[in-house]
């Protein structure tokens, strides 16, 4: 299952031109890094891969806890929060599944567009949603929810930090695979 080509191109442009401005960064040559000319450095990040692996195992526990707690506190919530919390649960489930898949593909296969998509989903979507779940007292946060949300937010923060570092390394060491079509 591959991301569509247009999305991959846009994410690649975003990483190389907006997130990391390559005009001011000196691109490393192989000799500077001290590698043998025919050796390529490993660009996958171990910390990111570990956090993705354990996040994947933790996700079903989080999902079951969250669903049971929502079911138990549902009658006590005001009407608008009932709708909001069900929507947030669905969104977080979908985003988490897509995010973990993109993180795996981007990190293990050293693909910049997938890793950029993973990083954007993590910091721009998942992080605000989990902060809302953890700090908005009006949704009647239960102790068990606090426990599982704290673990998930630690995972998300570690992935945001290590994902950023991995993306920066990957952008520096790889050339863009989307070249300008000059003469059609």
């Amino acid at each position, binding site marked *: 299952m591959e991301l569509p080509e247009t999305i991959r191109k846009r994410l690649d442009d975003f990483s190389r031109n907006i997130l990391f401005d390559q005009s001011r960064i000196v691109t490393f040559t192989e000799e500077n890094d001290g590698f043998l000319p025919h050796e390529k450095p490993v660009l996958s990040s171990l910390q990111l891969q*570990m956090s993705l*692996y*354990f996040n994947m*195992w*933790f996700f079903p*526990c989080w999902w079951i*806890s969250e669903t049971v707690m929502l079911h138990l506190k549902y009658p006590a919530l005001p009407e608008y929060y009932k709708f909001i919390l069900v929507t947030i649960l669905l969104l977080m489930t979908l985003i988490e599944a897509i995010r973990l898949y993109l993180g795996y593909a981007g990190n293990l296969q050293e693909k910049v567009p997938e890793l950029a998509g993973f990083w954007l989903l993590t910091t721009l979507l998942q992080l605000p949603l989990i902060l809302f779940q953890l700090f908005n007292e009006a949704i009647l946060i239960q*102790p*068990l929810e*606090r*426990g*599982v949300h*704290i*673990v998930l937010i630690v995972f998300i923060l570690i992935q945001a930090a290590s994902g950023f570092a991995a993306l920066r390394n990957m952008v520096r060491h790889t050339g863009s695979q989307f070249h300008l079509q000059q003469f059609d």
Partner: protein
Amino acid sequence: MSAVSSLVPARFLTLIAHLVIVITIFWSRENNVKACLPLDFTQEQYDTEDKKLVVGLGVTLGLFAIELTGFFSGVSMFNSSQSLLSLAAHCCASVSLSFFVFEKWECWTYWVIFACCSVVPAFVEILLLIAVVGLKKKPL
């Protein structure tokens, strides 16, 4: 037998289950504190027992930090004996602490669970950390 395929995620999940329950008890300890006080208790008695339980929970979190450091840094991640010991201890702790919350057990039972299921794995973890970092043995 490959330790990575089943032992590492199993140990991780039991560690996290125990951790989540300890965090949960931080917020729901009122019933347990009341269970170990006489029927007519003063506010000072309540505060004393409450503080003791909070100290116990805090020390548990500290021992968790030690064990998670050893686990995620790779020192004991692939060590089958420590993994099995940790798996069994934290599994017992998770089940016991669930009973602690649901059945509103008294405060002294927490110390029993703490001694058996938090101190033992953390102690072995410290031994492993000293062996690998201090004595430069191999982590496996």
